[in-house]
């Protein structure tokens, strides 16, 4: 098999690979811009917190209607919203930082979730059932991921200005406008939608990883937010594609393969990135001479 056909053949031969690629592209379009803002707001770990925070919602969904993905997903969304919005409100109205209040709420939520699950006396790992796999894209899941990306991009466009200003200079925004807090809360809602539908479609690792790692990569290639978002989206798509091919050729599970490719891109960016990369910092003179 030639090199070029090794890169293309998996997708022409197998429909599940094409569907996986489509899902990756949609996820990259929605998730990567969110990741850039999360990184700028020092909220990069919110994704993992959210993976636990949705448990009580999923558990209530399970209690009410059994092993029904839709009910569990809806419950998870509601729980995620509650945790994110409450944490946002607390950090806005008190001195507590966003990460600390989020940590408090997600831990409380997780404890509540475990208690609710134990009421039923079942020991099915609910989140294991709820969290999906990139190789198992059915029509419905693909549709959810695509809608999600569309909604995210449209809403981000609407709140872009206040969100950007809030991310870099919140005090200035507060002095000229009152759009800061609403923009922040809408943004939190977007984070939750992206994460929860991402969990359901692709599993935790991919949903969080394709949000945060590309943002980390983008930081080393661009000074301004728009540039960062573009780099993040492209590097997310690239990691997704290369990871799928890697998983197809080597038997590494797909989720980890995609994240490992992104991690390699990240390390390369840390070393050779145009903006603050290690090599640039060690040899700044050459750049100026050129």
């Amino acid at each position, binding site marked *: 098999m030639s090199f070029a056909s090794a890169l293309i053949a998996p997708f022409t031969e197998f429909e*599940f690979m094409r569907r996986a690629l489509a899902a990756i592209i949609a996820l990259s379009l929605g998730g990567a811009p969110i990741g850039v803002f999360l990184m700028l707001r020092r909220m990069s770990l919110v994704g993992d917190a959210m993976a636990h925070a949705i448990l009580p919602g999923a558990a209530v969904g399970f209690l009410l209607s059994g092993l029904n993905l839709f009910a569990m997903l809806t419950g998870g969304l509601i729980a995620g919203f509650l945790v994110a919005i409450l944490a946002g409100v607390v950090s806005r109205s008190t001195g507590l930082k966003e990460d600390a209040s989020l940590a408090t709420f997600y831990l409380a939520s997780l404890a509540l979730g475990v208690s609710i699950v134990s009421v039923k006396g079942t020991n099915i790992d609910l989140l294991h059932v709820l969290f999906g*796999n990139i*190789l*198992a894209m059915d029509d419905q899941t693909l549709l959810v991921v695509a809608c999600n990306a569309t909604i995210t991009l449209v809403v981000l466009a609407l709140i872009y200005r206040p969100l950007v200003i809030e991310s870099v200079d919140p005090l200035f925004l507060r002095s000229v406008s009152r759009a800061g807090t609403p923009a922040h809360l809408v943004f939190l809602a977007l984070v939750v939608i992206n994460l929860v539908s991402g969990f359901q479609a692709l599993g935790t690792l991919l949903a969080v990883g394709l949000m945060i790692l590309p943002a980390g990569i983008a930081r080393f290639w661009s000074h301004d937010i728009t540039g960062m978002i573009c780099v993040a989206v492209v590097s997310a798509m690239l990691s997704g594609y290369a990871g799928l091919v890697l998983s197809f050729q080597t038997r590494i599970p797909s989720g980890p393969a995609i994240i490992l490719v992104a991690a390699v891109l990240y390390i390369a960016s840390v070393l050779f990135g145009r903006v603050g990369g290690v090599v640039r910092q060690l040899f700044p003179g050459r750049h100026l001479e050129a």
Partner: protein
Amino acid sequence: MRRLSLILFAAAMAIHPLRAEDRLNVVASFSILGDLVKNVGGDKVDVATLVGPNGDVHVYAPAPSDAKKNADARLLVVNGLGLEGWLPRLVQSAGSKATIVTASNGIAPLQLGSDADPHAWQSVPNVRIYVANIRDALIAADPADAAVFRTNADRYLRDLDALDAEVRAAIAKIPPERRKVITTHNAFGYFAAAYGVGFVAPVGVSTESEPSARDIATLIQQIKAAKIPAVFLENLSDDRLIRRIAAETGAKAGGILYSDSLTDEKGPAPTYIALVRHNIKALTSALGN
């Protein structure tokens, strides 16, 4: 003197409470074993199960109430063959004095990778051995009711023989070249060996492992090449992957096979015999012409 006798009386009550009948407390590790113990013990035993209906015995985490069940039990019936990895710690922490009965003692274990395959109950002849082991353990623990246990066990063994014949008759009706299916986890090795139906599983024995794109692609090619007619789902795992495979290969999605757990009373498999009947019906309707 009178006070002393009262104390003695109370102490005697505590050690040996006066009840209409003394029932033997037995704990079974999961729902299928619980059903077998109930059938052999009848009304002479109280059976509690640790992993109840629709629970996954592979990923079970014991709760304090389970430790209490264990502490009260005279017998603890387990499957063995590495199924209950969590058991030694639970027994130790509960301070249980129960005798542990390994129901699978005496069966010939199949290999699954480098370990023994624990799902021995999927073959009815194996369950005959399970039942004999349970009967002997109950008799040893409660010799007074030995006759009852023997009668119950004989009756249940006859039911199992009938069930075994039923399965064989049903399989015989399926054309030999169509006797192969795909399921989500490798729980049917013993069924395959006993009755000659080929099972292929996309994921390894553990519910934990995640498939690679290569694994799925190989499986799809395999199904197409071997013209495998049906894929099956299980009651405990996400079915989207197996549905995707079915859609891509044109194989029929044959419904649910129950492997490691009974359902509750309302479900299609509340007892072991109902579980086997349900599975065989699902197999024949998907594989028959």
